[in-house]
């Protein structure tokens, strides 16, 4: 059976599983759509939340970014897990006690203002749409590889599949489908990592293998890796190269962004009890950590494998020959990935070999001149292909490759569909029915939901054609926006009675706008290429890159909110009582829909 059929089989079988579970679970209960987590054990809820949360950014993109940058991209690992501490300590139990279904409802009630609710909806929309762009990138790459076509066509086909998946709808609400998706994606991520860890270090646990011994050389794996990459003129893998301030702000932005994203917070509204909201955040992080502890091992080991494949005779010997790439099955992955346009090589000096090195490095330039090299010949290696190509790079069996394709699609599709549902309900439920046209019939509300879903996906595809970065970087921008707008409003709503309606509205608007402005100045207006005034290599404010600005935006939000609240009328007593009641678990009923 060839690889294409095998991939089709795995992807097809996993989809059949999700649909089967959706149909089976649906027959039992129809009211599950909103209250997906009610009556569900915290462990199960944690697993479903983990599937909802881990997207193309975590599965497809993150390890690739770590592989090619090393230590500096540890921010993704700390940021996307550390946010759960904030969620568990600062938000989840109180929002559960409050007992409504959406984030904007909490903000609307706590700040006794329809304007606040509307602004919250707008913040959610901006963050969610940016997030969807990143997901569509991942979907495009996965479909491109899996159908062996250009990533552009992969993106278009992927968009149609995501749309159909999201309209099919209720699937997202069924917790058990997500549990199945979690199982598929964690198996798909872990199995190749275990194989590769065994090959390289003899240790079956990748997280331990990363700090273990490289069997072939007898040296520690990371020492070996540092040596190979520096031999090729690249920056040392384990060393810090970027600015410390930027790394701190970037990590912080990802953390507070995690605690400000609506589709994650929503899961904690519907657990049975306040104490379960606390446990549930912990279990979610357990299931996320299984992937996040493995990801740095995947990145480091893939980097080592790629370097060794390109230099099969060692970094002092001859590079791999073009003939070997074209005929040796060990290099078959390069041929298939070339078809997506995301991997490319070019024999610039015509010596029949492909030299992969850092041609910006002075030492290597001297060596290149001596040996007659004319620049790095592995001219294109998109970071986002690394995880999907990883089992092929390590020559693992065909079924593992099929499994990884299914896992990547599960991660990207579940989150993309979940976000589209969040966007459509924000537009139809919160914006149209809640504000503009309250007398809307249920039928036209549903129609508006579908239209806004279609509009969101079209916008995401258009913007996704010229993405502002690799998938995980695009998603990081979405986190920055959520960090600067939603998180401070929620936190102040619970921990400070001083913040009133005007303070919250001014804070959210200031945080959102200043962050959006900073991102557009660096990434181009609406991500249109060449409309940017600055680059992340040389940012406007010292070392602060656009992906790190969310933390600054959040600080602006807090400051503006306190200043404006200090100048305007005090919070009324009944709202202070509401805040007091949110702070104690006793008397938490079941969550109710506010309409």
């Amino acid at each position, binding site marked *: 059976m060839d690889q294409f059929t095998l991939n089709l089989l795995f992807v097809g079988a996993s989809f059949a599983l999700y649909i089967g579970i959706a149909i089976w679970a649906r027959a039992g209960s129809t009211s599950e759509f909103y209250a997906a987590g009610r009556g569900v054990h915290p462990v199960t809820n944690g697993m479903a939340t983990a599937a909802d949360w881990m997207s193309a950014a975590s599965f497809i993109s993150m390890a690739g970014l770590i592989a090619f940058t090393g230590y500096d991209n540890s921010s993704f690992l700390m940021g996307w897990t550390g946010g759960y501490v904030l969620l568990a300590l600062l938000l989840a139990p109180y929002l559960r006690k409050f007992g409504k279904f959406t984030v904007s409802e909490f903000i609307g009630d706590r700040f006794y203002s329809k304007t606040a609710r509307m602004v919250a909806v707008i913040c959610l929309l901006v963050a969610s749409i940016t997030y969807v762009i990143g997901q569509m990138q991942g979907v495009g790459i996965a479909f491109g590889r899996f159908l062996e076509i250009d990533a552009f066509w992969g993106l278009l086909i992927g968009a149609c599949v995501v749309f159909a998946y999201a309209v099919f709808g209720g699937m997202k609400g069924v917790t058990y489908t997500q549990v199945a998706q979690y199982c598929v994606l964690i198996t798909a991520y872990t199995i190749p990592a275990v194989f590769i860890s065994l090959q390289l270090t003899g240790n079956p646990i990748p997280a331990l293998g990363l700090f273990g011994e490289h069997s072939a050389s007898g040296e520690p794996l990371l020492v070996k890796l540092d040596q190979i990459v520096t031999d090729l003129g690249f920056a040392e893998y384990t060393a810090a190269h970027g600015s410390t301030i930027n790394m701190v702000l970037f990590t912080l932005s990802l953390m507070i962004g995690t605690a400000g994203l609506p589709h994650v917070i929503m899961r904690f509204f519907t657990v049975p009890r306040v*104490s379960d909201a606390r446990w549930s955040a912990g279990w979610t992080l357990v299931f996320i950590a299984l992937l996040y502890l493995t990801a740095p091992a995947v990145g480091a080991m893939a980097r080592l494998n790629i370097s060794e494949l390109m230099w099969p005779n060692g970094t002092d010997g001859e590079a791999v020959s073009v003939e070997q790439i074209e005929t040796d099955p060990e290099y078959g992955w390069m041929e298939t990935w070339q078809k997506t346009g995301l991997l490319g090589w070019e024999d610039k000096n015509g010596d029949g070999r492909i030299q992969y090195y850092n041609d910006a490095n002075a030492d290597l330039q001297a060596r290149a001149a001596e040996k007659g090299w004319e620049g790095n010949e592995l001219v294109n290696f998109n970071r986002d292909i690394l995880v999907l190509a990883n089992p092929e790079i390590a020559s693992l069996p065909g079924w593992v490759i099929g499994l990884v394709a299914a896992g990547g699609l599960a991660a990207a599709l579940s989150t993309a569909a979940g976000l589209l549902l969040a966007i459509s309900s924000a537009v139809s439920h919160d914006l149209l029915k809640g504000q503009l046209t309250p007398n809307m019939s249920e039928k036209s509300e549903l129609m508006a939901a579908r239209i806004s879903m279609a509009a969101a996906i079209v916008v995401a595809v258009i913007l996704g054609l010229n993405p502002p970065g690799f998938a995980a970087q695009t998603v990081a921008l979405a986190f920055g926006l959520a960090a600067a707008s939603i998180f401070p409003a929620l936190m102040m709503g619970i921990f400070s009675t001083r913040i009133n309606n005007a303070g919250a509205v001014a804070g959210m608007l200031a945080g959102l706008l200043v962050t959006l402005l900073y991102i557009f100045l660096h990434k181009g207006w609406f991500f249109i290429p060449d409309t940017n005034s600055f680059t992340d290599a040389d940012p406007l404010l010292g070392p602060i890159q656009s992906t790190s600005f969310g933390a600054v935006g959040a600080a602006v939000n807090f400051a503006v909110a306190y200043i404006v609240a200090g100048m305007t009328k005090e919070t009324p007593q009944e709202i202070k009582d509401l805040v007091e009641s949110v702070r104690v678990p*006793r008397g938490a009923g079941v969550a109710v829909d506010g309409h």
Partner: protein
Amino acid sequence: MSAKSDPKAYWSANVRLILISLAIWALVSFGFGIILRPALSGITIGGADLGFWFAQQGSILVFLVLIFFYAWRMNRLDQQFGVDEE
């Protein structure tokens, strides 16, 4: 218990616990993983230094312990102050 059903005392006990937990949260990630990494570079662990390990593994493990510790401690506080869900 004397503290029973005193919402102010309950809330300040909670805030104190949050502050302690967040101090640890910041210490392992921003501290050991980033800012204090050079100071810890003498301690090696499997081919890298302790700061590298905290950035890629350690902080995640500490985050897990923190959340479960907080949940356990808070559920006990709820009972002590009589504000738990019946």
